[in-house]
C-alpha cells in the first residue's frame, strides 16, 4: 500500500511537472489553424502532457519581428511563409535549427532528401505545400486556359485577385504565354515587369482585390466574382464541407510552402524544437492532409494520405502535390521575392492607386 502510494504520488508529480510546461504556437487561424490543432496540437498534448497555446495572427511573421526587436519574445513556434522565413532568418530573428536531428521518413529516406525541394531551410521545417490557383463557379463558363482569366469577352464578369504583386504578376505572365520555368527570369527584367502590368491593365477595372484567404470563397459564394485566385484549401473546404458549386483550375497553379520556425530567444526553445521534430514526421504530415487539402511537405507522407475527415472524400485529387497537377505548376521563387518584394509591391501599389 505504501509503495502504491509512493508510486502514484511520484507519477502525479511527474504529471504535474509535465503539465506545467507549455509552448505557444502562432499560426494563421481559420480552417488551416483548425487542421493543425487536430493533426498536431491535440495528439501532442495527449502524448506528452505539454500544453499548447494556439494563437492566431494575420501573418505570424509580423509579431516575430516586433517581439525580437523589442527583446520580449513570447512565441515558441510560428508558422510562416518562405519569403518571410528567408528574410527573418537572414536578419537573425530566427533560431538556426539542427536540421539533421529531424527523423527519417517512414520509408527510411533521410530527412534532408525526404522533404520536397524548398521545404527545408536552416531556420525552418516545411509542413504543407499549398497552391494559389484559379477557382470558378460551376454554374458559369469554365476556364480552359490561364489566358481565359484575362479574357473579358469569353468570360465576362468580375475577377478576384490577391492584393499584392506576388501571384498577380506570375499569373499575368503565364496567361500571356510565358512558360512557368521562365516566369521569374522574365520578371527580373524591366520589360517583363512592364509586360505583366500591361496584362493586368486589361482587366484592372473588373478586379475585386482580396487580402485574407477567407475572402475568395465568400466572393464566389456571393456571386461578386465569376472566378478568382484563391488558396486551394479554402476552396476545397467550401466545396466539400459547405457544398458550394465551385471548381478549381489546376494548370499553372503556383506552389508555396508553410514552415515551422522558432523565433530567436523563444522562452521554451528546447520544447519547441521537440514539438517541431514530432509534428513534421511522416505520419503527422500525412495526418494533416485529412483535415485540409494542403499537400504534405515530405515525399514519404504522400502514400499515407487517405480519406478526408468526412470519411468518404479521397484526398489524392485535391492535393496540390498530385503528380497530374505538377507538370506545369510554378513553384514560388523565394530568393526572387526576397530581393524584389519591395520594389514590385511599390510599383503595384502605385499602379493600383493610379
Amino acid at each position, binding site marked *: 500500500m505504501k509503495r502504491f502510494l509512493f508510486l502514484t504520488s511520484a507519477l502525479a508529480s511527474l504529471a504535474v511537472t509535465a503539465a506545467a510546461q507549455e509552448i505557444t504556437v502562432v499560426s494563421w487561424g481559420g480552417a488551416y489553424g483548425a487542421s493543425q490543432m487536430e493533426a498536431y496540437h491535440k495528439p501532442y498534448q495527449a502524448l506528452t502532457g505539454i500544453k499548447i497555446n494556439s494563437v492566431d495572427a494575420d501573418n505570424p511573421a509580423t509579431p516575430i519581428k516586433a517581439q525580437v526587436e523589442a527583446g520580449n519574445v513570447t512565441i515558441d513556434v510560428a508558422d510562416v511563409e518562405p519569403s518571410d522565413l528567408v528574410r527573418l532568418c537572414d536578419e537573425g530573428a530566427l533560431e538556426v535549427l539542427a536540421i539533421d536531428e529531424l527523423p527519417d521518413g517512414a520509408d527510411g529516406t533521410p530527412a534532408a532528401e525526404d522533404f520536397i525541394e524548398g521545404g527545408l531551410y536552416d531556420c525552418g521545417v516545411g509542413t504543407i505545400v499549398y497552391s494559389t490557383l484559379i477557382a470558378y463557379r460551376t454554374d458559369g463558363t469554365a476556364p480552359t486556359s490561364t489566358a481565359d482569366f484575362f479574357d473579358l469577352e469569353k468570360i465576362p464578369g468580375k475577377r478576384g485577385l490577391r492584393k499584392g504583386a506576388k501571384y498577380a504578376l506570375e499569373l499575368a505572365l503565364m496567361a500571356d504565354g510565358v512558360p512557368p520555368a521562365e516566369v521569374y527570369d522574365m520578371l527580373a527584367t524591366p520589360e517583363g515587369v512592364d509586360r505583366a*502590368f500591361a496584362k493586368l491593365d486589361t482587366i484592372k477595372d473588373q478586379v475585386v482585390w482580396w487580402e485574407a484567404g477567407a475572402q475568395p470563397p465568400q466572393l464566389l459564394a456571393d456571386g461578386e466574382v465569376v472566378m478568382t485566385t484563391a488558396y486551394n484549401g479554402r476552396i476545397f473546404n467550401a466545396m466539400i464541407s459547405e457544398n458550394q458549386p465551385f471548381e478549381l483550375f489546376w494548370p499553372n497553379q503556383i506552389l508555396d510552402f508553410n514552415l515551422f520556425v522558432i523565433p530567436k530567444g523563444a522562452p521554451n526553445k528546447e520544447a519547441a524544437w521537440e514539438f517541431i521534430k514530432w509534428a513534421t514526421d511522416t505520419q503527422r504530415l500525412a495526418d494533416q492532409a485529412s483535415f485540409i487539402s494542403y499537400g504534405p511537405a515530405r515525399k514519404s507522407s504522400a502514400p499515407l494520405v487517405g480519406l478526408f475527415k468526412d470519411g468518404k472524400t479521397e484526398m489524392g485529387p485535391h492535393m496540390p502535390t498530385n503528380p497530374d497537377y505538377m507538370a506545369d505548376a510554378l513553384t514560388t521563387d523565394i530568393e526572387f521575392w526576397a530581393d524584389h518584394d519591395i520594389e514590385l509591391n511599390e510599383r503595384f501599389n502605385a499602379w493600383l492607386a493610379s
Partner: protein
Amino acid sequence: MAEIARDAPERMTAADGTPLKAALARAQGRARRRAFLLVAPLLVFVLASFVIPIGQMLHRSVHNPVFSANMPATTAWFGANPVGTEPDEAAFAALAADLAAAAEARTIGAVGTRVNYEMQGTRSLFTSAGRKADDLEAPFRAAMLDLDRRWGEPELWNTMRNVSSPYTANFYLAAADRFRDLDGGISRVAPERQVYLTLFQRTFLLSALITAICLLLGFPIAHLLATLPLRYSNLLMILVLLPFWTSLLVRTTAWMAILQGQGVLNNALVALGVIGDDGRIALMYNQAGTVIAMTHILLPFMVLPLYSVMRNINPSYVRAARSLGASSWTAFRRVYVPQTLPGVGAGALLCFILAVGYYITPALVGGASGQLISNLIAFHMQNSLNWSLAAALATLLLAAVLLLYWVYDRLVGVDNMKLG
C-alpha cells in the same frame, strides 16, 4: 500704537507661531503635491501609452542604424573619404571584412534589406556575398568584382554612403515620392512609382467630402433631437447611439452585404425594375463604398456635439427675430446657425481627424480607388516591414492634422469648440 501698526506685516504669524507666509506656502505645496499624486497615474499612463510610442515613431522615421552598426569598417571609410571618391582597394577590403563579420553575426540580411530600400534588387547581392565572404582574398577589389560586377557600380556605393549615416531624411523623401540621386540632389521617382502624394491628396479630399456629408446629414438630425419632446428625442437618441456602440467591423461588414453587386440594395433596385439585372450599380470596391460606409460610421461623431450645442440654444432668440419681422429662413441663417457654430466646428474637426486615419473600412470596401494613406502605412508595418517608411508616412499625416488644427484655431478659435 503707531509702532505696532508699522511692524504688523512682518510679525503676522499662524496659530503655531510660524510666519504666515511660510505656513501658507507649505499648505499650498502640500495641496499641489496631493493634486499631482492624484493625476500621477493618468500622467504615467499618457506618457507610457501615448507620448513615448509617438516619440519612438518620430525617432524611427529619421533613425535607422542598421548599416552603420553592422558595417563599421565601410562606414568609417565613408567618413574618411569625401563624397565622390572612387572606392579604392581599402574600401573594398573594409567591405569584404564587414560582409564576412555580418554574415557570421547573421545580420547580413538586415543590411541587405536596408540598402534594398533605397536601391532595388540589391538584397541578394549582400546575402550571397555574405555566404562567400570568408573565402575572399586580396586584392579585394578584383575579388569582389569577380563575385558580382555590380559591386563596382557607383550607384551602389553612393547608396551605401547614403545609408551609412544612422540619421537620415531619406524616408521622408520616399514618403514624398522623392529620392536622393547620384549628385546628392533630390529628384522625383519615376511616374509609375509615384503613389504617396496621390494618396495623401485623396485621403484629405475624401475626408473633407465625408465630413461635409456628415454635416449635411447630421445637422437636421441634431436639430430634431434638440427640439423634440424628451420622450421622443430619447428614443431617437438611442437610434443614433446604437450603431455607435456596435463594432466597427460589424458595421462595415453589414455595409458589404448591403452594397455589393448581389447585395440588398442592388437586388431591391432590380426587383423594383429601376435597373436591369445586368446594370447593377458598383457601390462597393471603389470610392463610393468608402464614402458611404465611412459617412455612416462617423455620423454620430457629428450628431453628438451638434446636439449638445443645439440643446442649449435658447428658442426665444429665434422667436424674437421672427417677431421683429425676420423671415423664418433669415432667422435660421442669422440667428440660429451662428449659435451652432461651436458644435459644427467640433463635429467637423472630430469627423475629419478620424476620417484621415481610417484604415479598416477602406481596406474592406474601398477596392483599389478607395484606398487611403493609412492602408499603405499598414502595408509597410505588416508586409514590407519597412517600419521607418511607415513611421515617416505616419509622421507626415500627424503633422498635416496638427497643421489643420492650427489653421482651425486661427480661423475659428479652439475655445469656441464645444464637444458636449
